[in-house]
């Protein structure tokens, strides 16, 4: 009787300890979620506050009762936000498309074709992965300047077309396709190019999509190279645009309009993320680092 009581007591204590631990875990996770989400909330909130209301708040208000969309109109009319967005879209699409073309051919050569010197070239490619971009950007800046390609899409795009890492990723993926498929196709008289287009690319679609998404994110957020290579506002990408807006745009105090621009810039990627959430979160560990 006594021992049974004791067991119950112990069990109860263990249960309540578990519950308390659970509460602490949820509290900590919620705290971090708030820290992550709050800047987003604040940018949306500020973007719908009117200019006069914002500037009269010495103590910032946590909500607004009279939201306005005027700041969004300002963001598109006072500064060339539309142009920045269009430039970024063009830059992203062209860079990604060109990159997919180059890396697919290279990965195919490494994975499927046999030729002299292949292993050495592959080794050189791999060793290039360790080279930080900061080291080569100086010469690239001089090269592009000398080629008179500053303030042009060619200048923006050319240096970021190849990625050794994605070639490597795709090659690994191509190699998992069984050899027998290739020989069967050969027997049927299929050419290498046709085999690549009709068999390998469709099979590797998931990897290609992952690479595409990662590259799109990278392009959309690129800042350093575009800043070096463009000083004509007509070629600014969003990152440079936002910096321009901050330093010369609406006037230093029109923060609501600035925040409206920030919202407009952030939304496309967030939408992309919500659509391809699983793909991105599976791809990132294999693909890129940020930070």
């Amino acid at each position: 009787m006594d021992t049974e009581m004791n067991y119950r007591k112990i069990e109860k204590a263990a249960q309540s300890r578990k519950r308390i631990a659970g509460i602490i875990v949820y509290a900590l996770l919620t705290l971090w979620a708030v820290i992550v989400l709050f800047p987003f909330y604040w940018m949306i909130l500020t973007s719908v506050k009117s200019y006069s209301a914002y500037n009269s708040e010495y103590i910032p208000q946590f909500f607004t009762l009279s939201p306005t969309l005027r700041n969004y109109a300002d963001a598109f009319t006072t500064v060339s936000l539309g142009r920045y967005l269009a430039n970024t879209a063009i830059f992203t699409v062209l860079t990604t498309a060109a990159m997919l073309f180059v890396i697919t051919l290279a990965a195919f050569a490494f994975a499927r074709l046999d030729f002299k010197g292949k292993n050495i070239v592959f080794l050189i490619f791999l060793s290039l992965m360790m080279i930080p971009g900061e080291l080569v950007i100086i010469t690239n800046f001089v090269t592009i300047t000398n080629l008179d390609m500053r303030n042009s899409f060619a200048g923006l795009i050319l240096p970021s077309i190849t990625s050794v890492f994605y070639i490597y990723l795709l090659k690994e993926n191509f190699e998992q396709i069984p050899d027998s498929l290739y020989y069967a196709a050969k027997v049927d008289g299929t050419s290498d190019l046709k085999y690549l287009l009709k068999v390998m690319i469709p099979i590797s679609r998931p990897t290609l999509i992952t690479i595409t998404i990662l590259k799109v994110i990278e392009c959309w957020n690129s800042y350093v190279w575009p800043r070096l290579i463009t000083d004509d506002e007509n070629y600014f990408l969003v990152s440079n645009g936002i910096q321009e807006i901050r330093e010369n745009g609406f006037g230093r105090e029109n923060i609501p309009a600035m925040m409206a621009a920030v919202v407009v810039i952030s939304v496309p990627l967030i939408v992309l993320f919500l659509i391809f959430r699983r793909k991105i979160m599976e791809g990132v560990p294999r693909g890129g680092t940020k930070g």
Partner: protein
Amino acid sequence: MRKKFSSCGSLKGWLYLLPAILFLGAFMVYPLVDVLIYSFEEGYNSASQTYFGTGTYNYSYVLHDPYFLQAVKNTFILVIITVPLSTGIALLISAGLNSITPLRELFQTIYFLPYVTNTLAVGLVFMILFKKTPYSDSLVNLLITFFGGNSVDFIDGPYPAKMFVLCFYTIWVVMPFKILILTSALSSVNQEYYNAAKVDGTSNFRIFMRITLPMISPMIFYLIITGFIGAFKAYSDVVALFGTDLNAAGMNTIVGYVYDMLYGDSGGYPSYASAAAILLFAIVLTITFINLLISRKKVHY
């Protein structure tokens, strides 16, 4: 016949590789050689493409430049604070995430958001959250005064305050990647180890220290190395918070110094930029090497 076939195949292989080789050659290999040459050419003028001598003058100039020393100091402080802190917090959060089932996906999705946002754009939000202006004390200062502290200008104010915002924002930005890696590492630990430990009546803390940590130590280590490399290259988050004139703000980083030497009002000195970039590369390489040495002793593979 056989020979002809193989040389034809050989040509084809090179043909497929040609675009990649061209681009890599022009924008990776050539610049790599060139940057070394630049760094030893004294007084290189990019307009006339002339220089008046070769030697180590560029390096000694950079190493004696107070802006560079400030940048090195800032970068090291940033690295030393953010890498351990972000890895530690990420580990804590991932362990928490792994212990719950309801709402787990929601939390994971939220935590990943900073990864897909534009560093420059969200940096502006952090700036207004921390910046003190004549019109407003900013939200963070409101919190500080609410808890009885004195308000500080985090963006134009004292150095520690500026460093604090920078570290905070950096951690905010790098967290998604770390959480993602650690959660998947944690969930891949074989459940049987845990069951065995539970049968033995081992406490949760002990299980974490003795089983979980050693099992995921390669991943933690990977994160520390990539974290070091990433933090040493900090730049765009700094620009986002403090604007493009980082030297004036006293918040420049090594990468920022390189770009400032190259371009902008203080620019036009590719030789100095090259020397600084190579110094950065040497620092990163050394730190990575030290990390690898330590890992051989500590990491359980």
